[in-house]
């Protein structure tokens, strides 16, 4: 419940403040969002499994976002930014899908 309240508060804050992203950070924002999505779905699955832990969630969320952004940044510097972003999105996408599958099994028992 408190998580949903946090989500709603965050959406409202984002909509009202519309923080300006610095131009240098702009290319890393979408990949950071995908990484954050992966962390959130992983946390939700852990919650349903009954092994959720606040500290793990915080750490996995922040490290996911930072590492995804860093990989893309490194790729940009090496000239393979697009390919590395694709790689990150593929890996995170597979994780998200299998996490959602596990969540589905929990909720619908199917």
């Amino acid at each position, binding site marked *: 419940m408190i998580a949903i309240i946090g*989500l709603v508060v965050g959406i409202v804050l984002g909509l009202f403040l*519309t923080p300006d992203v610095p131009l240098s950070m702009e290319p890393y*924002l979408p990949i950071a*969002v995908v990484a954050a999505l992966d962390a959130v779905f992983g946390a939700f*699955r852990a919650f349903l499994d*009954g092994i959720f832990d606040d500290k793990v*969630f915080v750490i996995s969320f922040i490290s996911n976002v930072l590492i995804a952004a860093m990989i893309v940044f490194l790729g940009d510097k090496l000239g393979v930014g697009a390919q590395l972003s694709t790689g990150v999105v593929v*890996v995170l996408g*597979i994780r998200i899908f299998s996490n959602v599958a596990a969540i589905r099994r929990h909720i619908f028992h199917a």
Partner: protein
Amino acid sequence: MADELITEEGAREPARLPPQAAMGLLDYLTTHAMDEDYAFVSERKETAEAPEPERPRRRIGAVGALVMALFAVLVVTAAVQTSRNSVSDERDRRELVGQVDQARSQLDGDRALLAATQGEVRRLQSRQLRSDTSAQSLLSRIELLGVRAGTIPVRGPGVRVVADDAPGADNARNEVLDSDLQKLVNGLWEAGAEAISINGQRLTNLSTIRLAGGAITVNARSLRRPYVVSAIGNKDTLPARFAETSSGQAWLDLQREVGLQLKITPVSSLRLPAAEATLRYANQKDQGGAS
């Protein structure tokens, strides 16, 4: 979840390969989709504490909510940024299109004004000069020069020459190039043509035939194939005399070797338009101002 814990433990046995190596990357990714830390931490706590049916640490705390809020801010910011960018891109594009349209219409207006002014000048000239006989000879001289220079529309018999790429042309070798058109026009002048236009662009003493941006450009207007060259002259002798010139020979070779198409048809009456020829720097000796 239970089997995951088993694989976790299996991985820790020294005799077995790590799961990444044994399972292949994709299988590993799907079985370990959730961060292993959750399982690890819960396992550690389970061994440390006595297992309870309801454990408060399994609930989402304020920190978790804070991270959820952070996540929401991140998502909303990304979405807002993307939509804002697309809107500004679209606006830039529209603005550019508008500027191009405006410049084009202004250019058209200027061209029309120029043509109207030139017609007015000619009309005034003929009215002024028709008064006496010396002026009349001057007038006919101006008209002759205008016809020669291409600033006056002319009508007369001649030939229509249609030049086109070889059928199925795919590279510069079997397309009509600017140099081919130059040869064609040179040959026609040599054969006795008195006025020539290409696709409605009258050739003047200032005209160029050149390749610009992949298209042949005459009088700074880009042309599209097929190239229709209208030449006023003796319609009976022009084709034969053209074939005798070196340019005609070159075109014969082009037709035979590369497959370029060239069709010459005599026409009893051709109309060639006038061209814009504005001189800014060239003055007559006895006149001070620009012509």
